[in-house]
Each structure stands twice: as C-alpha cells, then as structure tokens.
C-alpha cells in the first residue's frame, strides 16, 4: 500500500503509519525522490508519531530517505518520535545523526522555514 505524500508549498509531508512493510518503505523512498525532483521541493517532513517502535531497520531506512532527498536538494526533518521510542532508540544506540529532528509537524515546518538560525543538525 503506497504511503500518501502531501504537498504543502515547497514541502512534502509524509505520515508513516504503524504497519509499513519493508517494501512500502522502499517504495516511499523512491516516490519521495521522484516527487522532490518533480516539484523542486526544498523540504520533506516525515511524521513518525504513529510508530510504536523504531528499530535499527526503520532508522536505517529513514536515514536512507534523508540522504536520497538531500541528493535532490531537499532537507528532511523527522518529527513525532515519541518519548519512549526515543529512549529505546538511544539504548539501542540509534542516533539519526545527520538527520534533522523536531517535536511535531508544526516544529518541523518551522525548522524548514528558517534553516539559517537553527542549531546544527549534524549532531553538534
């Protein structure tokens, strides 16, 4: 089942639902890459608030998506990581380094709108 991608101005918004298969995620990555190119989007917001678990696979995939869209000139922000999911991720040692994160959709959009003033998302 393809994941819906919404366009809001120069930003593409994706809401990841809980039960995505590996194939869905790969299809999402390709779909995003295509749309970023087509619409010349400057940003992508991936909302993972519906995910009850972020394991190493999900994290690798998100990082992969961020890298792919970056190659097309768009910045990715992952939003909505829940408190206990964030905690589990750090226990697992997953860091999403190199990918910007924000609390929710609003914060994510803010971050994309004012990239200069924002603190570095390169882990510094």
């Amino acid at each position: 089942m393809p994941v819906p991608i919404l366009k809001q101005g120069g930003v593409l918004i994706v809401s990841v639902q809980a039960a995505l298969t590996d194939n869905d995620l790969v299809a999402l990555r390709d779909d995003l890459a295509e749309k970023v190119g087509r619409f010349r989007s400057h940003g992508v917001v991936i909302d993972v608030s519906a995910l009850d678990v972020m394991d190493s696979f999900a994290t690798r995939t998100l990082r992969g998506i961020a890298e792919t869209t970056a190659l097309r000139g768009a910045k990715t922000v992952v939003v909505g990581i829940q408190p206990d999911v964030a905690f589990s991720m750090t226990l697992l040692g997953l860091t999403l380094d190199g990918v910007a994160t924000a609390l929710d959709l609003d914060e994510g959009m803010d971050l994309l709108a004012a990239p200069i003033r924002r603190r570095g998302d390169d882990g510094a």
Partner: protein
Amino acid sequence: MAAKALPTSESLLLAGMDLTEEDIERRKAFLEFREDDVERLRGLNDVAEKYADSVIEDLYEHFLSYEETRAFFKDSATLSRVKKMQKEYFLQLTQGSYGLSYIANRIKVGLVHQRIALDVKWYLGAYNFYLRAVMDRLFEGHTKKPNGAIAVLRSLMKLVFLDISLAIQTYVRTIQQQQAAIRELSTPVLLVRPRLLMVPIIGVIDSQRAQQLTESLLGAIRINRAKVVVMDITGVAAVDSKVANHVIQTVAAARLMGADVIVTGLSADVAQSLVALGVDLSRIKSVGDLQGGLEEAERMLGYQVVPLAERPTAAQRP
C-alpha cells in the same frame, strides 16, 4: 488443565511483600530446614508450653529494664495484651506446622513491629534473648542426653532465622518503597521559560535513576514543547564514565525529539578525566555554570536579557 485457585488472603499478603511460595521454599532449603527439623520442633512442644510463661516473664523484664524498649509498654493493659500475643507467637514455633499460614502470620507480626517503629536492632536483640532463655531451659531438661538438646536447638535456630528473615523483609520492602519515592521526588523538571526546561540533578545516578530521569525529561519535552533543556549536574555525587554515558544517552534521546540539551556543572577537570577514559564528550554541549547555561539557552531561543538600568532611553537610541 486444573482450574486456578482463587488467591487466598495469605497468598495476597505474601505477594504484597514481593514474596512467593517458591521463595519461601528456597529460604527453607537454604537453611536446610527439613522434615526431621519439623519433627524435633513438634517434639519440643510440651516442654515449650511448660516454660512459655517463665520465658515471657524474663523477656519482658529485660524489655522493661531498657529505656528504648520500655517505651513501647506505657501501661499495664498494653503490657499484658502484648505478653499474651508474644506467648502465642513463641508457641507457634513448636506447633509443627510451617506452611503458608505460619508464614503469613510471621509477616503480619513483622508488619506490626515495623508500624510501631520498633528498630530492627531491638527486634533482633529480643529474639536473641528468647533463644538464650530457651537454650538454658532446654539443656536443663536434657542433662542425660545433651546431644538430643543440641539437635533440637539446631532445628529451632533454623526456624528462628527463617522468622527473622521474614520480619526483616517488611523493613527492607519499606526502605525500597521509600527509595522509589525519593527517586520520584528528586528529579524535578522545571519549565523556566516557554520552551525552556531545566533539570537540576542531585545525588547519585545509577542506571535505574538515569532511566527514570530520562523518561521524565522526555515526557516533559513533549508536554511543554521544549526546544532547549539545561541539565545541571553540579550536584551529581560522582561523575564517572557510566554517569557520563547516561547523560550522553539522555542528550541523544532529547535530540530525537527535537530538543537541544545544554549540560552545566561539568567541571574542566572531570571533563578531562572522562575524555581520558574514552568518553566522547563531543556529543554534549557543555557550559561551565548554570547561569551561563541558562543565558546560552535563552539566546538560542531568541531571548535577549538586558538589565533595566542598561536599557537605552529614547533619547539615547540611535
């Protein structure tokens, strides 16, 4: 498959003490408390009934001659009531039945002692007095076969130590509950400005406290929509590499929720030792003191703090 038995009040009492029947069996096994011990103790019952009253008299004379224990028996009504209960308690040691209801009984007694705030040392001292009193009377009755007396005494000691371990369980459990409460209270997360949280950490950080702290902080980040957190570790007892890694983990988790963390109170010396130990402090944004950290946090949020006296007046403004 047999139907599950409803929990009895005894098994509930045990569960309330974090004890299971298996646990009790393990304690008995470790004490090597077996059928022959049960037999010996049952065999002692007649003698025990005979000397029960005099042992109790001696015991209470002992309590009343010490200020700390005298305090528990303010009036004669209390004294006689307690003596009666004490006699029943000691006679149960030789009844020959040491199953679930015996255990539940011991726990209840432990709870009573704990509720009246009888310090463990007096409780243990009293039990010791009792053992000595019994030992004397036991050898009186076994002058011809002292080995028999020794065997009975050994069995009695095993049971008494089982009793003590149960009574102390109530104290231990209370301490654990209090520790949990202290942990809860001692990790406050404060909202000092919109979007700015401060966490002053004081005391010892073990992995349990670190997890609790991180959970509180992450929850607070979500509720307050915090963008910056100032975590002050000035009051942390010993900052070793384990503690440093807990801090690094907490910082990483906050970052996943879009919040930046500034750590304050990490002295240069400690930082140096941590780096020497191989801790990667590059993941932590550290500012020397709390005030500096708060100022930096405010700057990051776009605040600019200017003392009233220094504000340019209308005439001075360009």
